[in-house]
């Protein structure tokens, strides 16, 4: 049995008066042993980050600790003076954050930021020591990197730098708050491996906060599940993942996207969207970069094609090219046989109605100063529908997406993320769209909400005969909703096949790497089981 490193007992954290519940965290108890990885799982607002911040003493003033104890190696953390806590931070406990892009000071060289950890603890720091740390987190060319500024590094590299700072003084506790959420899936796999390596090599206890059960499966020894500030389940990773006791855990696990096991839907003969030889290049400095390189796509009526790729692969550029927001250098885009590229602005108009877009960020894609009714009826009005009629359409479509028609008079900020995405769908449907281009429509949503939106899209697709181009970075989501999957890398479609075929028998090495990087795969993941059954 491992030695007890961290003990949290009956921890309660308050919320400001205007919040929707009294306590951010109420009476949570758990412990963490040396060399152990404990995952804290929960959806947004469950209080999981609060726990991390309270241990580090980094809670803001509006969130007071109301009661309980936090003990790190016998030190009562809640009864330390700020100066004592400051000394413990960095030396006994280190922390890694969610946004690697913003977690480093943009005006300070990488080497100086790492050396700062030693300086503030009064420890002499040599160049070699910094370089050693960079090597420990598998960064290349440490001698060059120390002189570089954060903006010159990729997200994954920056996260490695943050990890290097967190482990610089060999703390016995490492807290990682969603450290891979903002990263591409292949980078995520590398960072998870790095954290596991560090934990094994140095016997560090890791408190790992995540919303992703795939990640939990990948890394956790033990798991606690949080819901609305309360701990609802606590156990070994195996028990919680395979034999969950609490209904909420069961619900979360069921919401994890999994490949569609139904018989493949027959493919229609008629194509709705055909792209061929699409090319778009940008000049970056004196270098020509191909955002789209000879892209061909054949989307049939009623079909859903998933466009899967990492950031920068060109999948959003392709979507924007189809709706004429980006002009391709060459190539052809046909919608039901009509070449969209040769159309004038006026000739395009009827097609705008038939092709609709669904955006990623439900918080930014709705105008905050307009009512939901106005947002939805704008499109029909622009295409000549009378205002009263457009209103009626808005109410009807809201009902169709599972919202109350009375929402027409309300404002976007009154709705949750999932509800806003429903409004976005209603907006697209109000035009009687035939082709829906969905650009990462569920990426910003919690897993249970994500499952609901995917269900909704699936239902609407069957009911209305919608064709969909579904862009996602998440192979699991694509596997659930798409008939076919196209894998994009550096502006090219490297492989395109029926979803099940692509998952069970990937041809291209990059596809194989993407599938292997899906978290949770090794321990019998959902995609893995699809590969076995097919």
């Amino acid at each position, binding site marked *: 049995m491992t030695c007890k490193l961290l003990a949290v007992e009956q921890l309660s954290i308050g919320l400001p008066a205007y919040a929707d519940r009294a306590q951010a965290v109420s009476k949570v108890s758990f412990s963490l042993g040396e060399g152990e990885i404990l995952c804290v799982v929960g959806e947004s607002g469950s209080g999981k980050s609060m726990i991390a911040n309270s241990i580090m003493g980094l809670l803001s003033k509006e969130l007071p600790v109301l009661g309980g104890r936090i003990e790190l190696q016998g030190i009562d953390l809640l009864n330390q003076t700020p100066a004592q806590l*400051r000394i413990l*931070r960095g030396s006994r406990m*280190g922390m890694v954050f969610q946004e690697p892009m913003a977690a480093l000071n*943009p*005006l*300070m060289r990488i080497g100086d930021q790492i050396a700062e950890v030693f300086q*503030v603890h009064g420890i002499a720091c040599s160049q070699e020591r910094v370089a050693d740390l960079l090597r420990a987190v598998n960064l290349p060319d440490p001698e060059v990197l120390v002189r570089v*500024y954060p903006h010159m590094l990729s997200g994954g590299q920056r996260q490695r730098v943050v990890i290097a*700072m967190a482990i610089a003084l060999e703390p016995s506790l490492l807290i990682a708050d969603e450290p891979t959420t903002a990263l591409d899936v292949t980078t995520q796999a590398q960072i998870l491996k790095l954290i596991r390596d560090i934990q094994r090599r140095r016997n560090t206890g890791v408190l790992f906060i995540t919303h992703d059960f795939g990640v939990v499966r990948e890394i956790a020894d033990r798991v606690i599940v949080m819901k609305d500030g309360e701990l609802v389940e606590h156990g070994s990773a195996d028990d919680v993942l395979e034999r969950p006791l609490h209904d909420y855990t069961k619900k979360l696990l069921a919401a994890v996207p999994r490949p569609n096991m139904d018989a493949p839907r027959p493919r229609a003969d008629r194509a709705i969207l055909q792209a061929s030889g699409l090319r778009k290049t940008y000049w970056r400095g004196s270098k020509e970069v191909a955002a789209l390189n000879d892209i061909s796509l054949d989307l049939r009526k009623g079909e859903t094609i998933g466009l899967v790729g990492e950031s920068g692969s060109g999948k959003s550029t392709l979507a924007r090219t189809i709706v004429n927001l980006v002009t391709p250098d060459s190539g052809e885009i046909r919608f039901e046989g009509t070449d969209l590229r040769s159309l004038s602005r006026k000739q395009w108009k009827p097609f705008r109605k038939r092709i609709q877009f669904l955006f990623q960020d439900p918080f930014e894609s709705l105008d905050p100063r307009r009512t939901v009714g106005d947002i939805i009826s704008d499109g029909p009005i622009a295409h000549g529908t009378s205002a009263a009629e457009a209103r009626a359409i808005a109410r009807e479509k809201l009902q169709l997406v599972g919202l109350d028609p009375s929402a027409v008079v309300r404002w976007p900020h009154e709705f949750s993320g999932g509800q806003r995405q429903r409004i976005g769908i209603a907006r697209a449907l109000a035009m009687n769209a035939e082709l829906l281009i969905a650009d990462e429509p569920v990426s910003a949503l919690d897993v249970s909400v994500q499952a609901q939106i995917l269900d909704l899209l699936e239902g609407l697709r069957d009911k209305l005969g919608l064709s969909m181009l579904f862009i996602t970075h998440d192979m699991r989501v694509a596997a659930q909703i798409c008939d076919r999957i196209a894998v994009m890398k550096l502006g090219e479609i490297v492989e395109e096949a029926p979803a099940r075929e692509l998952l069970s028998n990937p041809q291209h090495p990059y596809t194989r790497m993407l599938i292997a990087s899906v978290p949770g795969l090794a321990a019998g993941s959902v995609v893995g089981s699809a590969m076995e059954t097919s």
Partner: protein
Amino acid sequence: MSSNRLQAMPRLIGWRVLKMAAMVLAIVVVNFLLIHAAPGDPASAIAGQSGQADAEFMRQLREQFGLDKPLPLQLWIYIERVLTLDLGVSHRLQRPILTVIFERLPATLLLTGTAFLIALASGVALGVRAARKPGGIADTLIMGGSLFFYATPLFLVGIVLVLVFGVWLNWLPTFGMETVDMPLQGIARATDIARHAVLPVITLAVFYSAVYVRLTRASMVEVSSYPFIKTARAKGASETRIRWVHMLRNALLPVITLAGIQAGHLVGGSILVETVFAWPGIGSLAFEALLARDYDLLLGIFLCTSVVVLTFNLLTDLVYLAFDPRVQAL
């Protein structure tokens, strides 16, 4: 990558200077046309002053100043002269304009430069102090004070200072730049000038400073919520270190932008204060030239101020380039 940035510097600066030259030429043309669009001309002004205005005299005057030629030709002659750095002769002062401007320039630079530096230093310091605890007592006092001085017209502050420190307390001189009837040398003269400068400098500085206080405070509060501040705390850095090393440098970026804009107005922006305190600088010169319809002198001053503005724009961009590694181009 950062070395690339520095290698490209001479070329970038050369390109910018070229663009500046084109800009100055455009400014010369626009200024010239603006002035000539205004009713009245030097001939009528001189005629008015001399009290006699028969048509023949006016014609002679216009011929003397070249005002009888068609406007495009006048413009062409003016540009030719500007290109050879000959700004002409002030008909009122009967002296070369360039000489007059260079005589007055040091006084203005002394006044505005000092005020600018004091405003920048005090504004940033007070802004940082106010942002330490938003809503606290220090914050309320500092922000209240800065709002007061920002809202009060410049000349009013000047007049009140003159009344209090000059007239009632009789501590400081309120007029001119040095004591005229007492020719002083060396340190005695410097002290005399400094005593004369106190009130106008303070008048200008409180106004500028108010803006820096507000901007610095807002910027510090904003930066304090950035994730890298939390990273620094997680390292165990002290609050003082976080404030001065991590927050301030990032918070200064918008302050630099504003300071660059204000520095551009160091020469042209002090007309009011120079007039209130009879400070013999460019501002009061411009004011006099305007009243006397001394076109050529006015055009010379405009040219001088616009060159200063453009130069400080370039300097600001260079400072920014040195300060923020993310900036790649000028």
